């Protein structure tokens, strides 16, 4: 048996490099007009028209309690799906797709700079580069979102 290789879409928030499992990524879009949704949780930027489908968009940096994203030419929206949820995540840039063998993935350290380790699936190591791997189920966890929206 060949070792199991997983593929990740690599993107940046500030200077940090993150990865999200490619199987959960639907498309990557350029920034487009976002309609604000009142009374939504603060990290929800609003909704976009993704070829006829209404998709909510979150600012991933706000979600992680980092500085809000400044929109540049490199800003991208990564559209991800988890079960029956489709959400766009605003990131500073989306760089490439990388392959990681399963054994190059280590559990997330309990302390990362700033980001709640609950959101993380692990850390991928490749050629001395560190890739922080997101746990989408946690990032998009429904309970927390409904609770927030009611506050």
């Amino acid at each position, binding site marked *: 048996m060949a070792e199991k290789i997983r593929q990740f879409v690599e993107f940046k928030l500030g200077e940090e490099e993150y990865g999200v499992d490619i199987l959960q990524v639907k498309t990557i879009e350029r920034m487009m*007009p976002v*309609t604000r949704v*009142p009374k939504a949780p603060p990290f929800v930027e609003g*909704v976009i028209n993704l070829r006829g489908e*209404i998709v909510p968009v979150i600012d991933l940096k706000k979600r992680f309690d980092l500085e809000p994203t400044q929109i540049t030419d490199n800003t991208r929206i990564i559209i991800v799906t988890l079960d029956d949820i489709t*959400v766009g995540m605003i990131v500073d840039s989306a760089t490439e797709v990388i392959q990681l063998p399963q054994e190059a993935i280590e559990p997330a350290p309990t302390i990362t700079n700033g980001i709640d380790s609950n959101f993380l699936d692990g850390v991928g190591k490749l050629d001395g580069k560190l890739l922080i791997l997101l746990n989408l189920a946690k990032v998009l966890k429904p309970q927390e979102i409904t609770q927030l929206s009611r506050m």
Partner: protein
Amino acid sequence: MNNQYLDIFLEESKEHIQNLNDHLLELESNPRQDIIDEIFRSAHTLKGMAGTMGFNRISEITHEMESLFGDIRNGKIAVSPEIIDTLLESVDFLERLIEDITENGEEGDRDINIILEKLKQNPGASAQFKEPEKEDKKPEANQNFNEFEERLIREAMSKGLFVWEVLIKLEANCLLKSARAFLVFKTLESFGDIIKTKPIVQDIEDEKFDDEFTVYIISAHDKQELEKSLSSISELRSIQIKEVEQRSFEGATANSGESQKDTVACTVDEAMVKNTNHLKKTSKTLRVDIERLDKLMNLVSELIIIKTRLDGMDEKTDGQKRREAVEYLERITSNLHDAVMKVRMVPIENVFNRFPRVVRDLSRELSKNISLIIEGAETELDRTVIDEIGDPLIHLIRNSVDHGIEMPEERLKKGKAAQGTIKLKAYHDGNNVVIEISDDGRGIDLNKVLKTAIARRLIDKEQAKNLKESEIISFLFEPGFSTKEKVTDISGRGVGLDVVKTKIESLGGGIEIKTVPDKGTTFLIRLPLTLAIIQALMVMVGEEKYAIPLSAIKETVIVASRDIKRVQKNEVTCLRGKVIPILRLGELLDVKSNGNHTDDLTMVIVKKGERDIGLVVDSMIGQQEIVIKSLGNFLNNIKFIAGATILGDGKVALILDVNTMF
């Protein structure tokens, strides 16, 4: 189990069960050989299918039913109402088994022996039938919470939120139990998260509970607030709210306490996985006429042709051809829209066919003699509407049977035929579908309605004199109307009508009542053909565009700001003698104000039932047909927002949910 076949099995067995129901009813009034043959065939097919799928309980029951039919066919037993009762009970039981399969993918472990006994001993004599489900079902739902719920509770408590145990008891004669429960849920949901119910939600929805149920809710609000808003729901006998204390469930987890922490992550994931599995199994299917699909296919291929045509065109030179192509494209898209809508259409028969059974059972229970006439069952409605309309209709029919139609003796005295008639009629009327439920019973006693209204201080005596008939009737839709006056024989005419009305209005429809003393009552329900496309008024609030459904709008007015008064903290204005509360949409929706305040306020008056609210907007853009899209599962439950739509320029505008603003 092979899922692919399971779906087909479920779909077909439901058809056979409906078939059995229909034919049994027919058999009762008209015992003919060909009907018995038909029943025999349905039962036999069901038995065969269940056997192949390994659902032995179903095939056992159908086997016994079959032998009973065999006896009837050979003339060994005569058809009697008791036999029909037993057979119908068995069909109900089969239906429940099939529901279990739909939910869990397996038969479950209901006790079928009672039914089998029943069928074997050739009923006739035994008049009483023991409800089998009550004994073997719900083996006293476990008091304890499961791991996932415990975790939620612990989390909530650590955040300083309350966990309330709300015990609701319904009035014993409450008709639409599940609808009341629904109202309770809806009210509670506005306070926090419901984590558990007893019995489970599914059972509550199916009215499989006696008069009481318990809801566990995590909320930041205190007891009084909950109590206050629950008490506005009618037909609740009592509301008991208790706090769930930490130690009441701590004991159960103490032993697994520490080790659990590490596995928390995977518990959640498992729960999610379970959830999605569950969703998959109950996903809705729709049978579509193949002809309609072919038409859809044709339109799509035309769409592809036109796309290639546009591709090949030179932007500068082909002006005329281009215009033609765009026109053609327009025609295809509107045809395509029609075709897709048609695919979603389901004949209302799917709802109507449960009613003969309801009327039969009720009239036997009340020893009335009633015939049900159904017309226009082939009328088609959008699937979503069909799914929702069943309960309100059942309620109206029960009303007619119970309160409308008189006892046979009374009818004879009045010179009417002993047999009462309830007519159910559906037909298209423009862009609407109308459903009429009419009975030839005693009609509504308007004087009594008026007296009750005065007694309940909905109106004072002086005003009452000038009321029009339609205004008196509208009291029937007041929440809780007539529930307190069980003595009068109009009671019940109002019970739950508020629920019916709310439901129908939430579907974008309306309801009217026409009544003539001793001639009967007619309920007229008007429903839109489809929910997906509505007329809306587009308004500007600051720099943002919002859509307000036209069906909720009464009028638009311009009010000078000096005509706005303050009552306590709320702004109101007077419009033709009526005081109307005002909401400034900009503040409500946290819109950044663009700063220019004018003396004249543009106001959209919206209505919910009899109440009005004025919504202040910055300007109006105009009326427009919009396609409703959902905000998706990630953003459901956003306050004040019903959905979104895509505008001509590709941008998204939000649709306001006017109902939540009252």
